[in-house]
């Protein structure tokens, strides 16, 4: 499941970006052995590979629906995390600890960092609105992002925050319900600013 050979072009290139981000975060170079090592020993990369594979499998003719369902169920059991097939997950995602994560219908930008026990999704089943998360957002452990909200590029969501309103770009939001505490755009630090990560 970790091998991206059967992925379509879009899924494979997204996964290649995921690997780059993991290598950058782990302080490794992009050489061949480091890449193999990261792919084999990073649970987060397995998780992302599984999601991209499920999405790609869904596009197969005739058997796509069944294969998608089987792979999705296996990935739920394997990682104890769920990502809906309809989730739009940008390239270069960083998931260091892929446990207890539930992501429903949502649009997630590039280079987003998602920690353990994070929940992202629509507030109601029938409601059309879903969260839109910008590039380079950092989502802390246990955070919940619900409903038709927009989280701007580079924003930081604190651990266990419950986000039910918009968070402007570059700001930090914490608490239940989440309040914006820091309106100054955060200073970029090494490997933290997703759009600058090698593409």
């Amino acid at each position, binding site marked *: 499941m970790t091998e991206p050979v059967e992925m379509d072009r879009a899924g494979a290139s997204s996964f290649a970006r995921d690997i780059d981000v993991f290598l950058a975060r782990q302080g490794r170079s992009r050489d061949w052995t480091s890449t193999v090592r990261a792919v084999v020993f990073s649970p987060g990369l397995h998780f992302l590979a599984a999601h991209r594979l499920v999405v790609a499998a869904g596009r197969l003719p005739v058997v796509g629906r069944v294969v998608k369902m089987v792979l999705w169920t296996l990935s739920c059991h394997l990682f*104890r995390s769920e990502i809906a097939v309809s989730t739009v997950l940008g390239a270069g995602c960083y998931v260091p600890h892929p446990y207890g994560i539930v992501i429903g219908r949502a649009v997630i930008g590039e280079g987003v960092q998602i920690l353990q026990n994070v*929940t992202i999704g629509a507030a109601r089943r029938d409601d059309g609105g879903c969260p839109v998360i910008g590039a380079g957002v950092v989502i802390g452990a246990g955070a919940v992002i619900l409903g038709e909200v927009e989280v701007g590029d580079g924003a930081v969501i604190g651990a266990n925050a419950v986000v039910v309103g918009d968070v402007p770009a570059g700001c930090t939001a914490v608490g239940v319900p989440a309040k914006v505490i820091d309106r100054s755009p955060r200073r970029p630090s090494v490997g933290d600013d997703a759009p600058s990560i090698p593409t």
Partner: protein
Amino acid sequence: MFWKDDVIANGGSTTPFGLLRAFLFDPGAHLLACHRAAIGVRGVPGIGALLARLLWRHGVRTSGCHISLEASVGPGLKLPHPTGVVIGEGVTVGAGVTLYQNVTLGRTGDGGAYPTVEDGAILYSGVVAIGGIRIGARARVGANAVVLHDVPPGRTAVGAPARVVDIERSSR
């Protein structure tokens, strides 16, 4: 046996094909089937205890949820995303309760009392309810709330520590 209610609560059908489909592809129905089966086989003489332990272990391994076999779990428990759910051994869960991911129901310390969740209550993701408290029928508890006191029936509690708030109730 509550398995039919469980399958219906988790969005499946009770036709033979529907049951098979729920067991294979619905993580919530799968976990509950393991839980109910583990309780069911406990009475089998000789191998019952071992079978129950294996079924329970399989449920824990595949879902990451720890639902004690000693807990009283009513029919039609809905687990939309069964991951990180912990239900302690003295907990009482009523009928038609919904528990989202990462919900913890437990006691405050060794020898403490366990909470009771009444019929139709909904606990959203990350809720921690500890101690001998009562979450009333059809009450709702918001995401990441820490519930340390009773929530009256039909009311909504949010925050850490949780407080009861007036939120216009939408039909569901």
